């Protein structure tokens, strides 16, 4: 019995062992099945996921195209710089690390707070850019202390530099980090967030060409996002170098001539200067200590450099030889993270250095507009060369009295005399007979009140009013008095210095409505014809020649002192404040005795050589006084330089 029972039990046990073996087979099969599913059936999906894990694609910024002047001198280039990064997750305490860094390099505590805020918004394993303009010396200083600063690393980057500094501030403009606005407006692609793009000037206008094409770098990263190995997938294509028509030497010369004006340089450390600066905070904020000098006017007062603009243009090609606006700014400081002090100097400057007066400064053209009025009248057949009007020093229109600048009157003058002496009354008569519509359409042929479409962005259009304009914008009927005011380039008429230069270039050219070119090598667009008779134009030119050569010419003292090269032109003195009758009766206060803001703008437009024109020039000296004494000498000096240097 025992044996049978034992046998049965033995049977049960061996069945149990077999069941367990079967269980093991089942477990093994389940595992193999699962691995088959993962590693064979789903393999490609997981391979893709694995690749996404390990590779990070990084944009390689292209080297930005350089900007040269017409002779190949560098205006904007790239210099090697170092960016300082810190990975917060590798630091013991980010704040302490930043504080430690601030002892080695310039980092103000406000900026540290800013960085701390930024660090909180991004994953702590991503590098935080502390500075992107470190010099080699600063790098060395940080490297030495490296062991105490875990998580700190450097990136070699390119920094935009402007070797001409202040001279090209408005021209080249500056670059900056791509802003959110740049992306939403579609100016740059979203993958270029870490790049810089042009913010103003040529940098902005030719952004596409200068930028180049970014490349791509494949970075093998670990789970913390720390790069292990880098390989270049696609090299970046550098941006195109640009050559401008500008001559930097002329630009430099023009800038210094304009800034000096009729004043004398005086050392900044002169006690007299120090006294004046202490007494006048506005003066103090308009001058720069680093420059080392300020100016002293004819009455011995300390004054800041003159404010204004100069544009020189080739009358055949429209190539801009120089385009100056003062005061200006250093694009180098704006291309970096600008310090509060620098920013403060820029925005507190009473004369607004960030304003590019050459294209954005809108001034009444004053007497420089008289050529347009004369041309309109000549072309309309209202006058001829010989037609004379009598100037008694004033003209009454309705019950208003309009004065000539020369209160004793010019007597009987024809159009050439009138331009030579800038007789206002002659043009009052002319304008009343010609009418604003004809004047306005003539003005537009010469570019007054129309954008010149110069490359530099942000150009202001100026304004050439006519009857329709007044009705639409002011809602009133045009009055003859307004025609009288417009005839001497006052009232509503507004132009920019570049428009004035273009006007002169077209007057000198006589055939084509050339427009300004800034980039060398661009084929001049087919300019429309001017369509004004050569006879009329030559009368006007003779008038402008008389301005410098005539015995009574308003700029007779400022003819070029060169063999065979003479200048023709026109002065303009623009009132910025209406002269009341009481003031007129008391006798007009001399410009020099008025506060700067109330002084007249001094204008001069011209071209040279007189017989075979090549260059046209426009000079605007803001609140400079009279056009003949403040602007004409500037034009003379620049034209002299141009022809002497054979530029």
């Amino acid at each position: 019995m025992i044996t049978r029972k034992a046998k049965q039990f033995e049977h049960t046990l061996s069945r149990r062992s077999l069941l367990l073996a079967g269980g093991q087979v089942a477990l093994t099969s389940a595992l193999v099945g699962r691995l088959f599913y993962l590693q064979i059936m789903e393999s490609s999906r997981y391979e893709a996921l694995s690749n996404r894990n390990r590779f990070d694609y990084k944009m390689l910024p292209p080297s930005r195209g350089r900007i040269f002047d017409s002779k190949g001198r560098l205006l904007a280039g790239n210099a090697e710089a170092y960016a300082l990064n810190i990975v917060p997750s590798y630091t013991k305490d980010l704040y302490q690390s930043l504080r430690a860094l601030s002892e080695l390099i310039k980092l103000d505590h406000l900026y540290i707070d800013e960085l701390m805020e930024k660090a909180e918004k991004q994953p702590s394993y991503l590098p935080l850019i502390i500075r992107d303009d470190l010099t080699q010396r600063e790098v060395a200083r940080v490297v030495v202390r490296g062991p105490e600063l875990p998580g700190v690393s450097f990136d070699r980057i390119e920094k935009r530099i402007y070797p001409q500094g202040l001279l090209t501030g408005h021209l080249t403009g500056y670059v900056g980090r791509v802003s959110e606005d740049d992306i939403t407006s579609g100016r740059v692609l979203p993958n270029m967030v870490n790049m810089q793009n042009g913010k103003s000037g040529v940098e902005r206008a030719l952004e596409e060409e200068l930028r180049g094409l970014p490349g791509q770098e494949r970075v093998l990263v670990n789970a913390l996002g720390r790069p292990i190995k880098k390989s270049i997938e696609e090299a970046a294509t550098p941006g195109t170098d640009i050559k401008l028509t500008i001559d930097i030497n002329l630009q430099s010369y023009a800038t210094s001539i304009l800034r000096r004006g009729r004043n004398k340089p005086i050392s900044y450390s002169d006690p007299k200067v120090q006294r004046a600066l202490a007494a006048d905070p506005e003066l103090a904020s308009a001058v720069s200590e680093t420059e080392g000098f300020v100016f002293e006017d004819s009455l011995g007062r300390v004054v800041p450099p003159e404010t204004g603009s100069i544009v020189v243009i080739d009358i055949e090609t429209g190539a801009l030889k120089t385009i100056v606006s003062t005061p200006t700014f250093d694009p180098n400081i704006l291309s970096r993270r600008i310090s509060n002090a620098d920013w403060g100097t820029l925005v507190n400057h009473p004369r607004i250095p960030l304003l590019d007066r050459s294209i954005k400064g809108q001034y009444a053209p004053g007497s420089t507009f008289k050529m347009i009025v004369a041309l309109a009248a000549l072309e309309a057949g209202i006058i001829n060369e010989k037609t004379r009007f009598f100037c008694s020093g004033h003209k009454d229109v309705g019950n208003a009295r309009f004065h000539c600048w020369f209160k004793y009157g010019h007597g009987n003058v024809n159009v050439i005399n009138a331009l030579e002496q800038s007789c206002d009354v002659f043009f009052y008569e002319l304008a009343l007979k010609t009418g604003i519509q004809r004047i306005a359409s003539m003005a537009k042929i010469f570019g007054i009140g129309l954008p010149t479409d110069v490359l530099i962005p942000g150009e202001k259009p100026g304004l050439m009013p006519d009857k329709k304009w007044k009705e639409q914008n002011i809602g009133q009927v045009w009055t003859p008095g307004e025609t009288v005011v417009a005839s001497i380039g006052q009232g509503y008429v507004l132009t920019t210095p570049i428009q004035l230069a273009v006007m002169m270039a077209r007057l000198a050219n006589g055939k084509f409505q050339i427009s300004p070119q800034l980039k060398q090598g661009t084929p001049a667009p087919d300019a429309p014809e001017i369509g004004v008779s050569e006879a009329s134009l030559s009368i006007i030119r003779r008038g402008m020649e008389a301005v410098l050569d005539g015995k009574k010419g308003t700029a007779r003292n400022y003819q070029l002192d060169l063999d065979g090269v003479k200048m023709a032109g026109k002065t303009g003195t623009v009132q910025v404040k209406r002269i009341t009758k009481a003031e007129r009766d008391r006798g007009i206060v001399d410009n020099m005795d008025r506060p700067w803001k109330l002084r007249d703008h001094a204008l001069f437009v011209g071209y040279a050589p007189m017989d075979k024109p090549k260059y046209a020039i426009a000079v605007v000296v803001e609140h400079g006084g009279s056009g003949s004494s403040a602007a004409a000498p500037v034009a003379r000096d620049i034209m002299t330089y141009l022809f002497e240097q054979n530029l």
Partner: protein
Amino acid sequence: MKKLISPRHVPTFSTPLHSNTGATTGWFRAIPWLMIFVLMMIGMVGVLSLYSAAHGAWRPWASMHAIRLGLGFTLMMVVAMIPIHFIRRYAILWWVLAIMLLAVLEVIGTGKGGVQRWVSIAGFNLQPSEPAKLAVIVMLAAYFHGLYPDMLRYIRTYIPAILIIMIPFTQVLLQPDLGTSLMLLLAASVVIFAAGIPRWMVMTVFGLVLAAIPIGWSMLYPYQKSRIMVFLNPDLDALGAGYQITQSKIALGSGGVVGKGYLQGSQSHLDFLPERQTDFIFTMIGEEFGFFGCIYVIGLYTALIFLLIRYSFAMKINFSRLLVIGVAAMISFYVTVNIAMVSGMLPVVGAPLPLISYGGTAMMTVFLGLGLVISAMLNEKDVHD
């Protein structure tokens, strides 16, 4: 057959493993050389994998692992020298010692986040729940060894067995270490099953366990619950608790058929794979050697387990038979739970891959268990003498 069969001696139901001819060479031939060969193969996989886990370096893991393998091998052989009846007689001592160690852990144990699994003894970190598993198997085997088959019918027979299991089970569960405690319970269940528990009892227990699952759920720690929830849906927390599973699956899957090559596993070497030297070492093998590599490793373990099952068939001493089955079950559960976990079939519970994962306790437990197996085999002949 005329001899009265004592209850301690189960009748032979298989051919002996070795013919008992030469007295001098008997013990040598009794050593399961095939099993030892498989063990060495597994150990080699471990050393090579740990070399790769350290990005192709012996330090810090591979060399230490090789040393431990040597120590473990020695331990196995030393244990094999102990007469099996001696082990059986003093099984209770081992069991009590294991329970005491677990109790000590309650007081002085160290671990992360209030979880106590380690105890430091003489500078070595010991995880007492591992030897406790083996102690329960040995103790159960010893208990069932002394029973007449008839007694298996009575429920009261199982009360001591339940105590043997539940005391250490509860201690491990309270550490808390759900994974190890469940593996202890499963291995013990296999021993009881192999001992011949009546079928109706198996069915009843099975039914009760199913009914208890909802109650058990409510008693889990929040982190254990989240592990299970995340296991069921890894996307719930792809960067948190689901991160390990997700990355492990990516590593395994991207390994494909033949793998990315030795030392070339990007997931492992770029630190996407957590714990690649311990619980997730199989993932790294799968990434570097692909499906074939996985089959090879699983094949080695399966060979080891089937060898043990085959040895158990030849065992004439009930204690030895149950012990060998228990050790086989323990190894099987280690391997299955680990691979199922890293391939996303089970929640992450923290189970090593024995002899391959870096870590001493599980390895020593396995060598200890296999030492007992060899001892049982060497002592088989004593029964017949």
